[in-house]
């Protein structure tokens, strides 16, 4: 449960970054063809960083979870092989 909330937070960060990048154009306070205002620059840069960070975070979380699953599978397999060896010996 806790991990899911954490993953949701990472996803929210990624979504906030996307939102910050798209907000000046979506809300219209950045006119098309005109130079970017300071607010637009701030939102795009911050949103871009947050989106990248969120994506990296999602990637890292996924990789970490997959790695744990692989490790668990390996330990289960080793335990099972040990038990099989003991059973065959006995």
């Amino acid at each position, binding site marked *: 449960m806790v991990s899911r909330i954490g993953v949701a937070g990472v996803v929210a960060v990624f979504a906030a970054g996307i939102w910050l990048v798209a907000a000046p154009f979506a809300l219209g306070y950045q006119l098309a063809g005109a130079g970017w205002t300071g607010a637009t620059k701030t*939102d795009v840069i911050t949103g871009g960083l947050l989106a990248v960070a969120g994506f990296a975070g999602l990637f890292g979380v996924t990789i970490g979870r997959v790695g744990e699953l692989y490790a668990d599978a390996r330990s289960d397999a080793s335990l099972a092989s040990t038990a099989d060896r003991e059973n065959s010996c006995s």
Partner: protein
Amino acid sequence: MTRYLSGLCVAGLGLCGGGWLVVAAVAFGGESAGGARRVNLLTGAVLIAVCCSSLVCWSRAWRQRMRADGVLVERFPLVSRREARRNRRALSRDVRRAAKLAERSARGARRAARRSARLASGGALSEGGVLAEGVASAGDEAYSAAASYVPGANGSAVNGANGAGVNGVNGANGSGPSGASVNGAAVHGASANGTDAHGKGPGDSGVNGAGPNPGERAAELISELRSMLEPLLAATGTQPELTEQLSAVVGHSSPAVQPSLAGHSSPAVQPSLAGHSSPAVQPSLAGHSSPAGRPSSPGESAAAASPLPQRSPFASELRPRATAAELAMPRRRPAPMSIPRLAPAVDDSSVGPASDGEDAWW
């Protein structure tokens, strides 16, 4: 660990970004960016909240994982003040109770020690081993020393400490010149021996060691005394008090009676044995170098005819060391354990002067 670190890093970065958005909207917003300012404020606030919760969640998840792996130990459970006060009271109550119990048990132990010491010092006749290991009294030493004179006959034959008593009885059985006085002396000797001959006198010379079963020994000795004294008393028939005393001695089984017997162990008891003239005894008597060594006179015998005859200080030297009856008695093996001597050892094989214990007694 990777995902926790990634989540924590993303949450931290989102927190920083949200804070930056809020700060930028407030500090650098300007008058022209009304819509952008609101968007930045709202986005920044939401990011801060989300990232804070995400940080908490990721940190808790990581801690749970570390606790499950055994890396992180269980936290000490926090106790409320009320619970702590309750625990403190219970603890102090338990300590008081334990202290009270300990004090009670210590008191009981002291009482038991006193009781056992009293029993040991009282020298209970009935209890096994007391006859042989009782506390020596003053008048005891003469008897014990006498027992050490002829260890082959007296000491070892009659079980050490009681050898004196048997001596007295045997002496009475012997052909004494004054029958009545000898009888009285013998009976008193027996009673006195019953009380104090069990002591470890200086001259006791280890003959009266604690046997393997002192209780049986004592009972056996008492029965022997009775068997020897009964025909004697029946023959004289003039001293019922002595019979009572004998029965009291024989019937003793409680230490409470001991003091009354100990009273008989005064030096006044022993000289009544002086009237002996048994042939078996004569050599040992002749060897004595006591200045007052002399056979008892008829006057002394008459004096000894009283129920509680007074004994003279020289009587123990004249007391027979061995009689035919004693020599005929089955010898008992000396005790396997050695009893520490209170006085220098006396050459038991030589019939001569009194032992150191007896000398000290006089």
